[in-house]
């Protein structure tokens, strides 16, 4: 069976076996036709290669990666925008598994208190494999709401809420029936997750936060946090009375776009800076500081939990989109991590944010070899973790545990 040729197909591709000369144009390739293309095209000294040409930089999509990464030889200087097995972090069921394992390890090594720092993920069960464990937990907490999410889909597709086991019994029957008819399509894995019933509301609306984290390597772990991001609002007021109303509960712009209330001019997004100011005027700067520290903790612990599992190829880097939900006690929860965060802009402001984000990402990737390697900040990115915590202060970090260690992050500032 011949593999279909498409513009992403690299073939038996080898970049020609020469080291890239300094000053030679950097050849890039990408399938995406949005903000990224604009940024790449405008970067001085970068040229686009089409079809079969050799490339030094490829912002690929995950399907290409899956098919071609293993038999593509890359020169030392070549960079590609995904890690081979990023799904350890981005697929909900794998992430849960890795996090649970990491938590156990932490508890063994550092005690219950340290392990509790991993409790930012709502209780999740893989279905159908953990169905019985799930039912046990379900029975222990009658009346609470659960959310069912397909493991590998995005943009809010296939998600629904439920409160009674009967609801998923019906769903199970439906999927079983459809299996009988279509044998080729595998049973989709789902996760059932405890739904956060007391989200923080602004103007009566639910929202979640999108934050960008750039990982340059896993071993050692080097991660950068982008200062900007945004809060995505649901168009309708939050109420637990209508769990069937997707528009109330799911805040992805893709879902909200189809809501009858959606007005594209509005954009339904707040920049993180605005969000931070709003919280500060309501709860005071201290509470906000604590919230953002807790979010830093989420990013770092989640990356640490997959550190040993992800194949840390030096050619790879990855820009993750973290989705965070804040509850009414100002506790942040991790909803999911996206390996391919949307780079399409929904408004002028959004376009500017994503343009700067991508430009700065390319600065950090540093194909032009301009950085010294000692930078703690590049554009809007702050070096959050460099095989160890990075402090805002100059000089060696104070690791004694006491004192004023402040992480080098400035989210929303």
């Amino acid at each position: 069976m011949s593999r279909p040729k498409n513009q992403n197909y690299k073939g038996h591709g080898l970049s020609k076996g020469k080291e890239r000369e300094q000053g030679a144009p950097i050849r890039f390739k990408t399938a995406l036709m949005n903000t990224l293309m604009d940024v790449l095209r405008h970067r001085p000294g970068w040229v686009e290669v089409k079809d079969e040409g050799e490339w030094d930089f490829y912002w690929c999509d995950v399907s290409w990666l899956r098919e071609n990464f293993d038999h593509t030889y890359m020169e030392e200087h070549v960079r590609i925008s995904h890690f081979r097995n990023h799904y350890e972090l981005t697929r909900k069921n794998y992430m849960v598994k890795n996090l649970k394992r990491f938590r156990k390890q932490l508890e063994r090594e550092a005690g219950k208190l340290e392990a509790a720092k991993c409790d930012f993920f709502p209780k999740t069960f893989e279905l159908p494999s953990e169905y019985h464990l799930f039912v046990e937990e379900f029975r222990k907490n009658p009346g609470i709401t659960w959310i069912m999410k397909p493991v590998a889909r995005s943009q809010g597709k296939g998600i629904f809420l439920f409160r009674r086991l009967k609801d998923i019994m019906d769903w199970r029957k439906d999927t079983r029936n459809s299996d009988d008819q279509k044998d080729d399509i595998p049973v989709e894995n789902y996760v059932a997750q405890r739904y956060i019933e007391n989200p923080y509301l602004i103007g009566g609306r639910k929202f979640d936060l999108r934050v960008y984290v750039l990982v340059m390597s896993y071993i050692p772990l080097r991660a950068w946090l982008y200062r900007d991001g945004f809060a995505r609002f649901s168009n309708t007021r939050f109420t637990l009375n209508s769990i069937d109303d997707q528009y109330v509960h799911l805040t992805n712009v893709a879902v909200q776009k189809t809501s009858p209330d959606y007005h594209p001019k509005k954009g339904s997004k707040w920049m993180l800076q605005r969000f931070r100011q709003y919280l500060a005027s309501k709860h005071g700067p201290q509470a906000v500081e604590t919230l953002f520290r807790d979010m830093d903790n989420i990013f770092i612990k989640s990356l640490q939990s997959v550190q040993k599992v992800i194949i840390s190829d030096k050619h790879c880097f990855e820009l993750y989109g973290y989705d965070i939900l804040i509850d009414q006690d100002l506790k942040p929860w991790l909803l999911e991590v996206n390996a391919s965060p949307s780079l399409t802009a929904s408004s002028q402001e959004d376009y500017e944010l994503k343009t700067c984000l991508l430009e700065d990402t390319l600065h950090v990737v540093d194909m032009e070899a301009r950085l010294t390697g000692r930078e703690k900040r590049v554009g809007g990115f702050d070096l959050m973790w460099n095989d160890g915590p990075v402090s805002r202060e100059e000089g060696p970090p104070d690791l004694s545990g006491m004192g004023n260690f402040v992480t080098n992050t400035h989210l929303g500032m």
Partner: protein
Amino acid sequence: MLQEESDLSLMIAQIVQKLKGSNLYSQLERQAWASLQRPEIKLESLKEDIKEFFKISGWEKKLQNAVYSELSVFPLPSHPAAPPEHLKEPLVYMRKAQGSWEKRILKSLNSMCTELSIPLARKRPVGEQKELLNKWNEMGTDEPDLSLFRPVYAPKDFLEVLINLRNPNYENGDSLSFRTHLGLIQVPLKVKDIPELKECFVELGLNTGQLGIDDSTQVPPELFENEHVRIGQKVLAEQDSAAAQQYIRQGSPTALRAELWALILNISSEPEDVLYYEQLKTNVIQHDLLVDSLIYKDVKLTASNDDYYFVFEDYLYQVLLCFSRDTSVLSHFAYNSASPPKSYIRGKLGLEEYAVFYPPNGVIPFHGFSMYVAPLCFLYHEPSKLYQIFREMYVRFFFRLHSISSHPSGIVSLCLLFETLLQTYLPQLFYHLREIGAQPLRISFKWMVRAFSGYLATDQLLLLWDRILGYNSLEILAVLAAAVFAFRAVNLMEVTSLAAAEAVLADLSTLKVMPLLQIFLFATVT
């Protein structure tokens, strides 16, 4: 000397009169009676002891704040024989202009009403009342058909009226002289120049710390910010209105702003206030006013489309619908040059006994009105508190931005101040814009009418409104408008049409207000 004394005693008498009718008076009375049981109150020195008690328990502070509040709002002392119209507006030609403008607005409202055959007011059927009550917290989800409604007027209509204002006693003559006004406003009002503004806004000077400048991330907080926050907390602990007003001239820390504004405006949420708001809410539920549709339309057109304020849509309805039914707002017409429009019960046109004020609060909303409320949603989340703050802001400041008067904070003076500043200190720019048919006021008018709400980023807007409260004056709006032109002068010199000039000044969301003001007032060579 004697005149001043009699002015003062007149003022005192009037304030006492006003406060006697207030809630505070009954509270003080109750407190005084209750204090009789205290051991330190002795019959021989009753008066002094009670005074002492008030001082210690903080009630004197409350009284002080109330008096200070009255003084801030109270018009300047006038001759005791002056008729009440003079309190509203001393100049006859201004009063006349305001009167005819009001007639026009009312005519427009009435004709819309007749065209659409909608009554100005009607009682809601019970079913509708129930529905509205259920939907109270999410009125934004309603999509009534508002296509036939138009805003009664927009700021640019108002500008045309102001442009045509003339003082009949003032001979402009046809020949150009140094007295000719080259701008759009042609009335001779006294406005401040930069040296006077420097004196007035002395706390904005280069040597004084400011929030909005000295709290930026590069400046170490020990230099100014920490101390400023500490003082702010102290002011709040003391609950002193006057001190808060002085303090806020240097800007308010984000965390303290909501309380500071409430202190300066002398708003305390007593149960009576919450009850009053609930009463207004009941009025909204029971009766539907034509004005409500205008409010809906305005919110949908302006605040809902704003990138940041769309979130607060529901709060805006909750505040504005209640506001239009609040008859206590009528009292501000004593010092507002405007007068509340009167309407007559059907069929009884002209008969005074059948006249009612319409809307009940006497304020007809115009296009963009909801933007006065939107920034406040950032600070206050409890509907009755939000309502009180907005109402107080309106009767102290915002009303001046859409009524014709000679008051130094009135929109006419602000326009003239803006034009004069530009003409005097940026003559080349002013002349160039005039030549290409882009009179600067045509662009800056809408900023000033809205007090820059919706044009500046919210944090910057709040810093600006801090200063409005601190200086108890709206003149800073005109100064900022001029400062914005000064900032973009280079680009503006290159444009060749009004549209291009508008484009240069279309986006103010990236501007930092305090540095602009500081540079314009204190760092420009005059």
